[in-house]
């Protein structure tokens, strides 16, 4: 079963959840509704004609001129049938999305990174804390309104250790 046929099978099974199917440069991307993401993902993993057992990537994108603002792209791979499929979903600012970290354990750290850099909350995530940036960092850097240099680039750096206080 290749990725085009996977798109058709998905559309038959979840007709109201599938928003759009695109093909670009021989890659299939399917946009689904954010509320149905867990059912769609469980179906894609467990259906024996699809078997997308490897979650390759989970990326967040900020489209600040669109509404809903954020897009999450999941890249799935089937080790049995050897093809890739991209599932996209959109999340509004301030809204949250269900986690898929119990379906694929690989999603645990990847969702933490999306939360860290974009500020998107994942419901029922086991440990949704910052992973790359310091715990006390303010802001979400990969959002388009965050400057590359950060807030206080031109100020001299103050490093104060607990022993010296």
């Amino acid at each position, binding site marked *: 079963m290749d990725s085009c046929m996977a798109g058709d099978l998905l559309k038959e099974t979840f007709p109201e959840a599938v928003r759009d199917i695109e093909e670009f440069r021989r890659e299939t991307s399917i946009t689904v509704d954010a509320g149905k993401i867990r059912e769609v993902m469980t179906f894609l993993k467990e259906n024996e004609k699809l078997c997308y057992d490897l979650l390759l990537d989970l990326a967040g994108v900020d489209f600040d001129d669109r509404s809903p603002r954020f897009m999450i792209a999941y*890249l799935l791979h089937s080790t049995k049938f*050897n093809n*890739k499929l991209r599932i996209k979903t959109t999340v509004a600012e301030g809204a949250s999305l269900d986690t898929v970290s119990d379906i694929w354990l*690989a999603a645990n750290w990847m969702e933490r*990174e999306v939360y860290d850099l974009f500020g998107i909350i994942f419901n029922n995530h086991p440990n949704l804390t910052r992973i790359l940036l310091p715990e006390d960092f303010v802001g979400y850097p*990969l959002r388009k309104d965050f400057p590359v240099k950060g807030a206080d680039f031109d100020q001299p750096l103050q490093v104060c250790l607990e022993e010296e206080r």
Partner: protein
Amino acid sequence: MAESRYMTINMGPQHPATHGVLRLLLELDGEIIVKAEPHIGYLHRGIEKLSESMTYPQALTLTDRLDYTSALSNNLAYCLAVEKLLDINIPKRAQYLRVLMAELQRIASHLLWVATHALDLGAMTLLFYAFRERETILEILELATGARLTPSFIRIGGLASDIPATFLPRVKAFVEDFPRRVDDYETLLTENIIWKKRTTNIAPMSAEECIRYGVTGPVLRASGVCYDVRKAYPYSSYEDFDFEIPLGSHGDVYDRYLVRLKEMRQSNRIVKQAAEKLPDGPFAAQDAPLVVPPAKEEAGRDIAALIRHFKIMQEGFRPPCGEVYASIESSKGELGFYLISDGTNKPYRMRIRPPSFINLAALPKMIEGQMVADVVAAIGSIDIVLGEIDR
């Protein structure tokens, strides 16, 4: 105040055996690890954010600094993604040279891995042997690219320039000599009883656990799953080369060591074939004038070529709107680039799929229930590069 019967110790971020700035918080019940929590981000330089303010050719230089043990592989992955977006064809000579350089980098990366892994476990001799071979490879690459560690030689459309005449004889001399060197390393370690006692049945991962954690690369293949991007989704003419994918069975540290040593031999085989079968032809795409800059002599002679060169260097090029994902099999696992273009000359979003980041997430699973003395062996066996994890 509740007291815990477990002791929490902190390993890193400055530690000789964490291969970079990795911090591990270990909760111990005597010698057994009850809980392990990696803390990363001590090298987060904001590469993905920085690439959004650079043109496509400029962002290529950032990719060298990701997996800095095999820099040309990162360039290759990025160029494949941009070329897929632009839909341009790369000439055969450039593809074969890319394969040759990527495989040399894989050998160099595995040499560094075996050197530091053996050093962590106490076998210091191998460090000096492996660094001697790594120096040979870096000198060969420096002949062509001009830089040892961060060359940025694989460019969008092909290569930066053609290889000099001394390159192929040096490569051929290296591939003749290298299998004997790998035999030396095997003599030191493979049947060594101390090495076997320190690495067999340590940090095991079954095939199903590896797939659930999204682990790719030699760690996945040591558990028995045959997924290698070079065979599954061949890129850059890998289908023209004859090589095998070594697999392990137990998924422990010893199997990962064996898989990487065999991969070094197979990479040597690929480099030999690429050097022998290298076709003649251009080193960059000829039918993409807005992407590939003209040769220096031509830009010096012809004003139109000079203007074209200037525009490519200053403004880059504008690919069509769309999104692509291209991946390669790097020495750590599947390295992928997910590029979203909005039609301007800068990438709208460059997402890097870092193999070491996803492999490291499986570390707690590997070491919980094991002894604290085996943590160093486990970290070494995953082969992490913090530049790629933290980006």
